[in-house]
């Protein structure tokens, strides 16, 4: 197993390796520079921050798998937070209605990108770059001259974004679930495979993996519970990631996504409705961006002109790429967004703790993104020469 792992890595199939290396390096460096970095409550804050951009990054994974890009997710998230503030706080609509309006705006924008791409052949790069400006303009327009709307602190939404954490016993129990699911599904598929004479993974490896996962998660949860605990918002983010992962790996839709990303013409000839696949990805991406935007509004308790600007776009894209989703299409996973955003936010959190100016932070984050993309293209070149797609 260990040898197979090294062979895979050498041939360019890096998987989650860069993330783990990255996390170890980052936590070592930052905790040496400032011990607060690894304090439980700082890590809890980190998880709160991860959830907002992380949800956006999940959408980015979808378009990257197709080999396309959405550069407007930042503006889309800002627009969503503006819609939320204007309709909910200023106009006094029920909050649910405001959320639905924001979600529908996301779906509409995603549909528009898909139409531009499918019908007019407009590259997604250009269409969404135009969208970046247009949506930002719309955000500023509906926010009006005041430019910033404060969300009520006592509202459930803001509490969700700032305070609410899982009860400790609950998070401890929840941490058992992945390991248990792994064992149950693993045993069942193993039994089924053996019954039809297919090779199955050895029982030992399965148990070792499940136990290791459970121990790691239980320890992480225990450590975070020394602080405030696991944010519900982070739970929501991971929940969406699990659902997306199921969709991508276990459904015909997901298979079609990878097929279109790998070889569009082959997918078309296999009878896949390629246009509908593009539509689903762009819609999903924009809609998840609106969810991320609303989460970050609740995190900041405000809808402002700054929401969704700055490094939101690049962080979302960088998270997906660092986690192992290829910019070239056909490779990726929902969990790459989860792990990637941990790396990105850890860097940004650590730099903030060091009191570095934002000029330095931008430069460092930019360099990290560049390194991630370089790793991606080198790994891809190595995969090609080793006969792995």
């Amino acid at each position, binding site marked *: 197993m260990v040898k197979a792992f090294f062979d895979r890595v050498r041939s360019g199939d890096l998987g989650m390796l860069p993330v783990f290396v990255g996390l170890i390096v980052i936590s070592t460096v930052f905790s040496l520079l400032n011990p607060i970095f690894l304090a439980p409550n700082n890590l809890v804050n980190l998880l709160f921050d991860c959830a907002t951009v992380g949800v956006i990054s999940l959408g980015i994974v979808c378009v990257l798998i197709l080999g396309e890009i959405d550069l407007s997710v930042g503006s889309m998230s800002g627009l969503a937070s503006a819609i939320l503030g204007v309709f909910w706080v200023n106009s006094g609509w029920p909050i649910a209605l405001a959320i639905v309006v924001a979600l529908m705006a996301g779906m509409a924008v995603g549909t528009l990108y898909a139409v531009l791409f499918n019908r007019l052949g407009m590259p997604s790069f250009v269409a969404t770059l135009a969208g970046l400006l247009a949506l930002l303009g719309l955000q500023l327009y509906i926010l009006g001259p005041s430019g910033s709307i404060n969300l009520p602190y006592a509202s459930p939404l803001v509490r969700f974004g700032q305070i609410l954490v899982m009860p400790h016993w609950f998070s401890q129990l929840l941490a058992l679930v992945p390991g248990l699911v792994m064992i149950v599904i693993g045993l069942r598929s193993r039994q089924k495979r053996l019954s039809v004479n297919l090779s199955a993974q050895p029982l030992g490896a399965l148990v070792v993996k499940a136990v290791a996962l459970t121990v790691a998660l239980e320890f992480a949860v225990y450590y975070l519970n020394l602080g405030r605990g696991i944010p519900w918002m982070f739970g929501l983010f991971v929940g969406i990631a699990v659902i997306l992962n199921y969709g991508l790996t276990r459904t015909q839709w997901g298979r079609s996504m990878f097929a279109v990303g790998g070889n569009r013409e082959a997918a078309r000839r296999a009878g896949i409705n390629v246009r509908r696949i593009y539509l689903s990805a762009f819609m999903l991406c924009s809609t998840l961006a609106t969810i991320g935007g609303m989460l970050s509004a609740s995190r900041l308790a405000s809808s402002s002109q700054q929401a969704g600007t700055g490094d939101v776009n690049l962080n979302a894209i960088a998270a997906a790429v660092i986690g192992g989703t290829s910019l070239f299409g056909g490779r990726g996973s929902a969990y790459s967004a989860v792990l990637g955003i941990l790396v990105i936010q850890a860097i940004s959190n650590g730099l903030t703790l060091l009191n570095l100016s934002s000029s330095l932070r931008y430069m460092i984050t930019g360099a990290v993104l560049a390194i991630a993309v370089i790793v991606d293209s080198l790994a891809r070149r190595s995969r090609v020469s080793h006969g792995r*797609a």
Partner: protein
Amino acid sequence: MGTVNGMPAKGQTILRLSKISKNFGAVSALTDIDLEVKAGEVVALVGDNGAGKSTLVKVLAGVHRPSSGSIEFCGRSVELDSPGAALELGIATVFQDLALCENLDVVANLFLGHEISPWGLDEIAMEVRAWTLLRELAARIPSVREPIASLSGGQRQTVAIARSLLLDPKIIMLDEPTAALGVAQTAEVLNLIERVRERGLGVIIISHNMEDVRAVADRIVVLRLGRNNGVFTPDASNQELVASITGATENSVSRRIERKTGAAPETTGRPA
């Protein structure tokens, strides 16, 4: 699979084209083409560049609609107006570029677009079916969980042919299946074609390689300038074939060869 219900008996005519013409504007790509394919028969379609082979394949694959003429499939007159319609009838096509997704594994490629249980993929059932199919073809694939990118050209061709068989077609068309392959791999693919024939399918193979064509074909149909230009048996000499393909010699020669060798009675060759 193989001889499941609805499979015509060996020797029975599956596909009959009569007087198929296809015009692109003023250009006539095909003129009055006749072609017949029986169950358990390999028909080779040969001809020079621009002879209309590809157009004919596209007509049969449902990509182009013929301008005139009729197509009979299993005794019924049919319209092939879309790739889906052709597939549904049981005409499968393996295009020259194979159209495989390199990033997906063999199983995923075999079942692409026709996955078992779309809302919770049944990987085990698909893998079992994939192994069965590949074993029936005696195909040498190391693992069905390898991405296509790690397979050789011959193995890829095998996967493409296996995929075309997945929907239980009655006829498969292979466009230049050996063009990009080495000697050993070519032999593998030719073996594969023979096994497909043994399963009772009709096979149409397009090739420029006369040696390969003669090795597997039961009949060799020559097209020239969009018209039928003779039907040969595999034991026809290279010279005769080349003459017919290029039109460099008198057409009476081809007629004489057919008389002499007692070629199939459904001779469709007419002087161009």
